[in-house]
């Protein structure tokens, strides 16, 4: 291994995005993420889009290193362009994109040069809903609801309680907002500028950013150390 190769490796992330939460609902997939980009614990960027449509049938959400995510988007642009250039009526669906990304992530970890992301892939094709995840070392799976990062700790218990297959769009959005609110309160790198995206048989919509209504007057928020007895 030359020292040149070493210096091209990601040893730790620079600018990172926080959790992505996604669920299946009646007509397709809903995904939510905030728009913050953290440089360590500095809130460096405040308007980063982490939910992107890929081709006709797929929606991709990412947490982790933002630059790596944007590199992945370039790979996918090329993939979809090549797919479209055949112009034969065939197109890659969410399952194919998920599998492709799994290969990319796993190959990079094999080269000890990972893409520092957790990716959420959702989509609908031929009436089939699809929701899956891949992380930086290639672990991948499908589920009815997924969440990356702290979302796995804070959002998924809520989803396990309240999710069901026949959620309407409104119920789905409400559920995601509930998850995002908990994350906003408890994930220090979360910001209150949130995007929700949906994908159905008809296509992808990424809704304009919005803020959640919050209430910070809980006594535990005002004086979090009130009941903590200690020297500090």
């Amino acid at each position, binding site marked *: 291994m030359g020292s040149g190769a070493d210096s091209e490796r990601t040893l730790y992330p620079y600018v990172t995005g926080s959790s992505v939460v996604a669920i299946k609902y009646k007509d397709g997939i809903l995904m939510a993420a905030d728009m913050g980009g953290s440089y360590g614990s500095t809130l460096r960027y405040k308007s980063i889009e982490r939910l992107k449509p890929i081709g006709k049938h797929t929606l991709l959400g990412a947490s982790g290193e933002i630059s790596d995510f944007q590199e992945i988007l370039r790979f996918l642009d090329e993939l979809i362009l090549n797919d479209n250039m*055949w112009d*034969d*009526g*065939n197109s890659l*669906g969410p*399952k*194919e994109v998920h*599998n*492709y990304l799994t*290969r990319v992530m796993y190959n990079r970890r094999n080269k000890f040069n990972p893409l520092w992301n957790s990716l959420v892939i959702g989509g609908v094709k031929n009436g089939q809903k699809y929701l899956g995840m891949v992380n930086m070392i290639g672990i991948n799976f499908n589920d009815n609801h997924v969440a990356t990062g702290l979302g796995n700790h804070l959002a998924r218990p809520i989803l396990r309680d309240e999710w069901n297959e026949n959620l309407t769009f409104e119920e789905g959005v409400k559920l995601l907002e509930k998850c995002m609110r908990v994350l906003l309160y408890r994930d220090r790198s979360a910001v209150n500028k949130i995007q929700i995206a949906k994908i159905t048989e008809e296509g992808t919509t990424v809704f304009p950013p919005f803020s959640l209504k919050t209430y910070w007057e809980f006594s535990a928020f005002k004086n979090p150390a009130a009941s903590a007895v200690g020297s500090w």
Partner: protein
Amino acid sequence: MFRNQYDTDVTTWSPAGRLFQVEYAMEAVKQGSAAIGLRSKTHVVLACVNKANSELSSHQKKIFKVDDHIGVAIAGLTADGRVLSRFMRSECINYNYTFESPLPVGRLVVQLADKAQVCTQRSWKRPYGVGLLVAGLDESGAHLYYNCPSGNYFEYQAFAIGSRSQAAKTYLERRFGNFNGSSREDLIKDALIATRETLQGEKLKSSICTVAVVGVGEPFHILDQDTVQQLIDAFEIVSEEEVPSAESQPPSEEDAGAGQAPPADQGAGADQGAVADQGAAPMDI
């Protein structure tokens, strides 16, 4: 003495704008024993004639499975055909590895054609001397393609290549209008009859032909010899009873036959069904 000055290598044009070496390769396809393909909306059937090189030898394999959803029948240089089917197999495996879904048939055919094309433009290469009928099923339905040594490819409803394939083509041209709605069994029957046309009077037996099917709910597979023999027997009996002329056929019964038999994915019950169909419309042959 006259000698063609423009056929000593592939990359030399004739003044008439022809590439003789490529045309010779296409000639090799015509020399090979016949291969036939036809398709409905849901199924594709491939058939070929097996000719042994000598009394003492067995015949060569001319139909290859490429993947669960694709198969090929070849005419021409069998050795070249094997190389190309190996290429196709590996393309399918690679695509499946990255996407976990089957390679669309049309794309494989283009890759194959591009590979053949390269050989028409390199001085140190030789065109493949084989024609391939590619049968496959994908999201957009059943497909039948013909790939030839020139790098051209065509999609067909039904086609025949190889020696005396003209007779089969004539038969198919007369009948192809109904193929889209045909049942699996009718398709196989037509494949066998078309195969028989190329034999010029020689008796059709399962030992000298191979039949393969791919379709909805049915991965590509080569029918075993017993099944093929049963199917042949079924319509041979019928044809002996009836006038063996192929011309006249009442369209009403034909349509009814095609309409009532849904393209069911049946394996074992297939031969039985075929026998029953024969009874219903015996005047096809």
